[in-house]
């Protein structure tokens, strides 16, 4: 049973503007702050990708207007390859850290975890506020890396050493830009650790009476597991980042071996190992990508159940699968390093563990499909995105079967095939999880409904668009197109792919334009949307028992007592096709 002696009833204290909206300790305000940070970041990241797609499709083109704004990156009128690489590095970094690690976990999790378990706030509200502002500072430093003289780093979001450790002699942007990048990431790690701590303590300690672990919604299970992953993974990145910083400015040689001659400069460092960086980075990096996807899986399960009007299929197996994915994600990192010069025996072990992580993922997919069987599907916008998630997760995940085998990875490593794989799973499926969560919880957060019509248009453009963008990249990879190339036209064997590049770019521009439909819908509905009631979706979890938007202390006088599981839909013998979690006991055995 959860202990709730730590919960105190808040009386309504009226704070000033700053305490209420800027330095608030209310988990709901902090959740929205995170979501807005993620929104800014995703727009920035999308903008960077426009540059990337411009160059890939038309590498020799001159862009006089852009030359006016970015005189160095477009010196001579053409986008330089170093500008492309800077855009690519910052696109990846901003999207992975400031969008996919913030919105699903710190954004929606902060807002809805306490409410879904029946708590009044997070366990550590002040720490929560701190974690947001630390993340904000990290973003400010990252943006400064974009703007600094010398430019943003060009070493990719993975910042492999020694390219990232040697400084400006190894390339433009690798001086101040790279240092700022490392500092930003280190600050971000600190912020994420604070978040993870808060989530774990809250979930373990602050559940309402009756909210046993096996009655928690799958969203809570997902956030809980993700928080464990974050707690154990981010310190490793922080350590790696500090070592990299020391190599860059402190004269150490953790990652730089002796005898290097870069651009005719003899590097005085010696004794380090580039592979050490890769191990440290990917030990963090693999759990990180599960941090990006697990909350989306939780949200998808939650939404599917709500709008299928059926309990999620095999709740217990779903919980086990989330845990299994989380656990196994710690022992697969070497699959990013099959070609790195790492021991081939390790590669074999990592290959088996990587295949193993596909099994719980497959279980989840089967269970989602089974949830739909016998359902009465309501095609609301959140449901569309949840269904889209399932489709995209299958597409993105299934190519993992190829990349998990070192023999096949000999050919496919560092080609566009990998780019297609991780974009479909992170850059699309996880984003669909975020969209689904947004459309689903918008009425609760803002007390108004988003436009269903605009939501449908947004959905169709996005689903068709992302498939049109990323499916062709698989074919490019199979043709042998390496990744992180500013253009493919230097190689004869790749020139036939140029029309594909143009196709992808055009689809990308259309899809990006369609996101403005979402933006419009989002902001205009905040003021003009139809007023939402307490439970517009007829859902069962605890957030749908309180007003929209919720009061400061969430539940007011009535602290909920939970008597039912989270997905009691279409229960035989019940008057309505849904039973709230806090409905009186006795209806259904739970």
């Amino acid at each position: 049973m959860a202990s709730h002696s730590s919960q105190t009833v808040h009386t309504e204290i009226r704070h000033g503007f700053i305490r209420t909206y800027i330095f608030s300790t209310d988990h709901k305000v902090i959740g929205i702050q995170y979501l807005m940070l993620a929104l800014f970041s995703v727009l920035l990241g999308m903008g960077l990708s426009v540059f990337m797609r411009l160059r890939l499709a038309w590498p020799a083109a001159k862009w006089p207007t852009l030359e006016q704004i970015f005189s160095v990156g477009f010196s001579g009128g053409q986008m330089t390859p170093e500008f492309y690489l800077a855009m690519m590095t910052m696109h990846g970094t901003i999207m992975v850290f400031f969008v996919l690690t913030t919105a699903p976990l710190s954004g929606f999790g902060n807002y809805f975890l306490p409410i879904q378990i029946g708590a009044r706030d997070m366990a550590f509200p002040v720490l929560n506020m701190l974690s947001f502002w630390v993340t904000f500072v990290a973003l400010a430093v990252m943006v400064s890396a974009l703007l600094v003289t010398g430019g943003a780093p060009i070493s990719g979001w993975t910042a492999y050493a020694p390219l990232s450790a040697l400084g400006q002699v190894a390339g433009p942007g690798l001086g101040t830009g790279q240092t700022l990048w490392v500092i930003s990431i280190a600050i971000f790690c600190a912020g994420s650790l604070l978040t993870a701590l808060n989530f774990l303590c809250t979930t373990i300690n602050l559940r309402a009476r009756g909210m046993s672990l096996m009655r928690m919604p799958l969203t809570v299970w997902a956030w809980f597991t993700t928080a464990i992953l974050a707690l154990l993974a981010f310190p490793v990145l922080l350590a790696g980042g500090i070592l990299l910083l020391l190599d860059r400015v402190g004269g150490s040689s953790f990652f730089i071996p002796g005898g290097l001659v870069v651009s005719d400069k003899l590097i005085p460092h010696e004794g380090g190992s580039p592979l050490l960086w890769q191990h440290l980075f990917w030990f963090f990096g693999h759990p990180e990508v599960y941090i990006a996807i697990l909350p989306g899986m939780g949200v998808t399960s939650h939404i599917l159940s709500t709008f299928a009007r059926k309990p999620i299929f095999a709740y217990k197996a779903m919980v086990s699968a989330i845990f299994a994915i989380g656990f196994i994600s710690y022992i697969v990192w070497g699959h990013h390093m099959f070609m790195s010069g790492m021991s081939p025996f390790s590669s074999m072990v990592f290959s088996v563990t990587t295949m193993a992580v596909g099994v719980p993922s497959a279980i989840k997919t089967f269970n989602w499909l089974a949830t739909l069987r016998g359902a009465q599907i309501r095609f609301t916008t959140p449901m569309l995105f949840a269904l889209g998630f399932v489709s995209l997760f299958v597409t993105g995940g299934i190519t993992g079967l190829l990349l998990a085998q070192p023999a096949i990875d000999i050919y496919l490593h560092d080609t566009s095939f990998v780019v297609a794989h991780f974009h479909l799973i992170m850059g699309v499926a996880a984003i669909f999880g975020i969209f689904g969560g947004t459309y689903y919880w918008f009425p609760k957060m803002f007390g108004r409904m988003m436009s269903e019509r605009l939501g449908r248009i947004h959905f169709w453009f996005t689903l068709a668009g992302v498939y049109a963008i990323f499916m062709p990249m698989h074919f490019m990879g199979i043709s042998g197109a390496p990744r992180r190339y500013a253009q493919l036209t230097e190689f004869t064997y790749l020139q036939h792919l140029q029309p594909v590049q143009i196709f992808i770019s055009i689809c990308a521009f259309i899809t990006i334009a369609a996101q403005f439909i979402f933006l419009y819908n989002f902001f205009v509905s905040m003021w003009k949307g139809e007023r939402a009631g307490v439970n517009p979706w007829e859902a069962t979890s605890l957030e749908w028992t309180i007003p929209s938007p919720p009061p400061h202390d969430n539940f007011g006088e009535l602290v909920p007592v939970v008597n039912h599981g989270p997905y009691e839909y279409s229960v035989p013998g019940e008057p309505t096709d849904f039973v709230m979690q806090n409905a009186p006991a006795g209806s259904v055995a739970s």
Partner: protein
Amino acid sequence: MPFAFAVFLWFMASITVALFIGKVWWLPPLISEHGAAIDRQLVITLIIAGIAFFLAQISLGYLIWRFRAKGGQRATYWHENSRLESVWTIGTAVVFILLSLNGNRIWASYILTPPPADALPIEVTAQQFAWNIRYPGPDGKFGRTDPHLINDANANYLGLDSKDPASRDDITTQNIMAVPVNRPIRVMLRTKDVTHSFFVPVLRVKQDTVPGLMIPIHFTANRTGEYEIPCAELCGMQHYKMRARLLVMSDTDFENWLKQRASMQ
């Protein structure tokens, strides 16, 4: 809406599978011995992945359409079936294990099998942004190199020590790698500055060149012709232009080529 969604999924899945089966954009021609097993495993995995992908998308589309809400009815309260769960879990695990075992077998046979003792040794040293290729010459020995002797402006890219007799007959080229056909080649991969990656698509060969390490790989090319070698690890601003040519030629042509290059040293 449900029908449109289903049609979209069926259409997307069908087009994707058709493009793969039709090999509209496919692997470049294979010219190595060990590559055949890799290609086979790639195709088998693609087929299995393709079947799973196709079935999943088709079922999703079907379920979306078939179980759309029809006024006033309740959904079926069916939310677990241990037998079904076990079947699809074990089934998936078995397929994955078998795939993995076969894949690992092929990997082991490539990476853990040393080349024959008479394999032709070639040293490849990557730098920003060119490939330096070195042949040991008639003495069969690579001369000593020293980073302090590197002088790109003097065309001494490797820092060859002219005082070492073994280095006198070394033949170095930049961005051209000639190999005799049907002979095992042992390539020693090094780098002067950052991590690059030696990737020969037609040979199905790839290996990162890591600063501080010398990494050997081997292959046998079984078709003559001219092919391309891209760099496959981000190494800086001209990563996309790091292009070497692989020339696979007959034994006699190769000997003549070596002699001609030796006279240019």
